[in-house]
């Protein structure tokens, strides 16, 4: 009974979340498609046509996986951070706190909502990329696995940000000052082999590098880091952030007086 009730509650949160971002699709689904379309035109076609191949792939083909995973990262994060913070801000989080839902169910529901948006945007950006190039996916299973794990990780990060946020400004600080630099420096537009050795070593401390390269391995079969290392690092971060989220929800930090 307990599991069944929680599964129903989980479905409710997921449906609510999907309906939420679907209702405002012009704000949530279309902008990443437009932005990534511009990246494909400017970096892929105009500038990329002047550059040499990387790992035997044209520059356009090389950046497609990076741009798709970048959209997944940004959208899974921003879905959870904005939805959960707005739930807090408008006090409808009280609906959840008063009800007998387990904290794990709340967490799973919001993270699934973030993953859903991340993957939908990922598919849309992939479709946009087909206007510029034809990519044969090297391993569909690895591509999907890395996409789901990455979206899960950034949804969890978004939830932590939302829990601590006290204003709408607070939910844009992390994406602007942490997420964007890490993503841009995570090998979306280049292979770290192109960097001097010192910066190559520094780049290895950037967790986003492993997500970008894991995803690139799935799509193209080439990577700067080993796939196993990438998967282990992402799962390690998921376990760590997931535990932090559950602890914060249990203590009521940022959501209860």
């Amino acid at each position, binding site marked *: 009974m*307990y599991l069944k*009730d929680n599964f*129903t*509650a989980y479905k*409710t949160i997921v449906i*609510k979340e999907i309906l939420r971002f679907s209702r405002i699709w012009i704000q949530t689904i279309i902008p990443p498609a437009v932005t990534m379309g511009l990246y494909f035109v400017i970096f892929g076609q105009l500038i990329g046509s002047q550059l040499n191949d990387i790992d035997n792939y044209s520059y356009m083909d090389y950046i497609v996986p990076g741009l798709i995973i970048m959209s997944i990262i940004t959208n899974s994060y921003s879905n959870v951070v904005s939805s959960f913070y707005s739930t807090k801000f408008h006090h409808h989080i*009280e609906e959840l706190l008063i009800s*007998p839902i387990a904290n794990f169910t709340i967490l799973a529901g919001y993270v699934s909502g973030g993953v859903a948006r991340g993957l939908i945007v990922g598919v849309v950006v992939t479709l946009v990329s087909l206007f510029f190039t034809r990519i044969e996916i090297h391993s569909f299973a690895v591509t999907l696995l890395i996409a789901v794990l990455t979206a899960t990780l950034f949804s969890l990060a978004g939830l932590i940000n939302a829990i601590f946020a006290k204003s709408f400004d607070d939910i844009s600080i992390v994406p602007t000052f942490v997420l964007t630099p890490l993503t841009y420096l995570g090998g979306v537009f280049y292979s770290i082999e192109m960097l001097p050795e010192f910066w190559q070593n520094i780049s290895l401390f950037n967790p986003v590098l492993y997500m970008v390269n894991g995803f690139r391995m799935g799509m193209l079969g080439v990577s700067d880091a080993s796939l196993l290392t990438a998967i282990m690092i992402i799962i390690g971060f998921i376990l760590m952030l997931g535990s932090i989220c559950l602890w914060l929800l249990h203590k009521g930090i940022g959501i*209860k*007086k």
Partner: protein
Amino acid sequence: MNALEIKNLRKTYSNGFEALKGVNLQIKQGDFFALLGPNGAGKSTIIGISCSLINKTSGNVIIHGHDLHKKPRQAKQHLGVVPQEFNFNVFEPIEEILVNQAGYYGIERQEAFKRAEIYLKQLELWDKRREMARNLSGGMKRRLMIARALMHHPKILILDEPTAGVDIEIRRTMWAFLQKLNQTGTTIILTTHYLEEAEQLCKNIAIIDQGNIIKDCTMNNLLSELEHECLVLNLKTSLKTVPQLEAYPASLIDEKTLEVQIKKNDSLNTLFQILTKLEIEVLSMRNKSNRLEQLFLDLVKKEHHVQQQGSSTGIVNVFKR
């Protein structure tokens, strides 16, 4: 078994403010209970802790025999809450708000839609079911929150000032709805600033002030403490001076309005006999203030007086030493 039992509940906020100083309260199943108190007395803190919105400092909250801290899932299942502030998603259609709420309690969507229809019809919101909640009027929003709180058929319904800002007609409709709900066995706990509301609806009452329960008894017992009432008489003819009404102290508000104090057990007939003798004709009569309001004010004033005396005695003792 009590519907709600609160044992030695304490709450000190992070700024050091002690909102609850060891509150004990027992509310029986099927009761219609009023929790009254001035602003900042601790009412909302009690409700917030009982609804898991505020963390307690110490003490216990037991809902239908389940300790809220030890068995939150079982305890929360019995509780429905109508908060003071609107706390639903204003960008969702109202039917969806209800269906989601049911889902949080493990009720499948098909069943949730059926229940939503029942409550939306009962609370006269059915025609608005596809409307975004932000488009509803204040009264409709209050009714929506009542419908939402009932979706999982709770045994206890807590209403925190449910009729605040609602016009008198809707208020009375809501009273009738709540009375009917109480008759079906739902325990109702009400906080309100409309003391007339508490007097009309509630069987038992507790008054809280400065984090302590200062009165916990039946409504009848409380009202029996009333020593005198003040009546306002509208007169047919004008009076220039205050008439001598023997044992009834009187004062003139204006030429045609007379205020008379009457002891609780005194007969009104005697007063009217005196008025008739003085050829004063009365057109209509009303209580100056709500009876409960007077008692409430007296009790809170008395409590403040006792505390002030306590603190000043303390100061005197320090000086004596």
